[in-house]
């Protein structure tokens, strides 16, 4: 698949994650496709994949996934994404979450995802679910560059002074 076609696929895939319909996400995968998140055992088959999508959509009902871009690397097609949402689902604390990650895809001949290995900073995600993206981290760190802080990367996202936070800890 050409880079242009891959980019179009990636954009449609990102939109599917935004739509609140987990089956739309699953439809991008081969029947026996798999989706693994952060090295956990993969969800295999469209129903299992839809359940993974459903869990994110349930936690973050207003979830928005945007495509940062895509790289053809030796290990596969690497789809880079950025996620924003509010944890207003059942049991959620209502905090805003903003995180980046990527999926390494192996595509089949039909252009469906045969295998996706997704990665993001799980501890940062957990922190944001508990505290929100804007919550202070370590008071002893220097403030990050705003552009970096917005990206919510744990190593860079120090306290953002002067901003609202739902928790002071």
């Amino acid at each position, binding site marked *: 698949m050409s*880079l242009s076609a891959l980019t179009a696929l990636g954009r449609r895939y990102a939109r599917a994650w935004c739509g609140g319909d987990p089956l739309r996400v699953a439809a991008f995968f081969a029947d026996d496709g798999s989706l693994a998140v952060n090295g956990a055992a993969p969800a295999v088959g469209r129903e299992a994949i839809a359940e993974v999508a459903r869990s994110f959509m349930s936690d973050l009902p207003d979830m928005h996934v945007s495509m*940062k*871009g*895509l*790289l053809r690397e030796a290990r596969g097609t690497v789809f*880079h994404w950025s996620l924003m949402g509010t944890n207003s689902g059942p049991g959620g604390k209502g905090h805003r979450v903003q995180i980046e990650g990527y999926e390494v895809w192996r*595509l*089949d001949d039909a252009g469906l995802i045969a295998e996706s290995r997704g990665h993001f900073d799980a501890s940062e995600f957990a922190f944001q679910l508990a505290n929100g993206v804007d919550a202070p981290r370590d008071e002893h760190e220097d403030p990050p560059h705003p552009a*970096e802080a917005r990206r919510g990367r744990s190593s860079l996202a120090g306290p953002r002074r002067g901003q609202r936070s739902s928790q002071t800890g």
Partner: protein
Amino acid sequence: MNLTALTAFGRRYARAWCSQDPHRVASFFAEDGSLAVNDDPPAVGRDAIAEVARSFMTTFPDLHLSMKGLLREGRGTVFHWSLIGNNTAPGGKGHRVQIDGHDVWRMTEDGQLIAESKGRFNASDYAYQLEHGVSEPPDEDDDAPVAQRGRPQRRQAR
């Protein structure tokens, strides 16, 4: 420019680097655009940028640059590329070079041209390859993207 348009722009830019016409590369830049390579001072203006392109095109008469992809990041649009060429220019040692890198672009206000490009690649690896060549022999599999030739074990499954 949206991601689809940026991808098309990147593909045309990569093709320009393959054209042996340095002015084609320069035409992707604003008239007062700049191109910096690693820690060198930037070339400013299309003529200066064409000279940078010419130096690579001279070093590698068969220079091929392929686009690996691009990412929209906070710092700008990041264009990832892979270069392959034989250093058969006069004075060159004839070795094959294959190197990956990326350029961080700031586009002009109208989004149509590159206002500033900061390029990065591993200069010591590049210098080593000019002197000694890449360690792996080329693979003749034309199905593989050029950047991946010679690395069959890392090819994407189909």
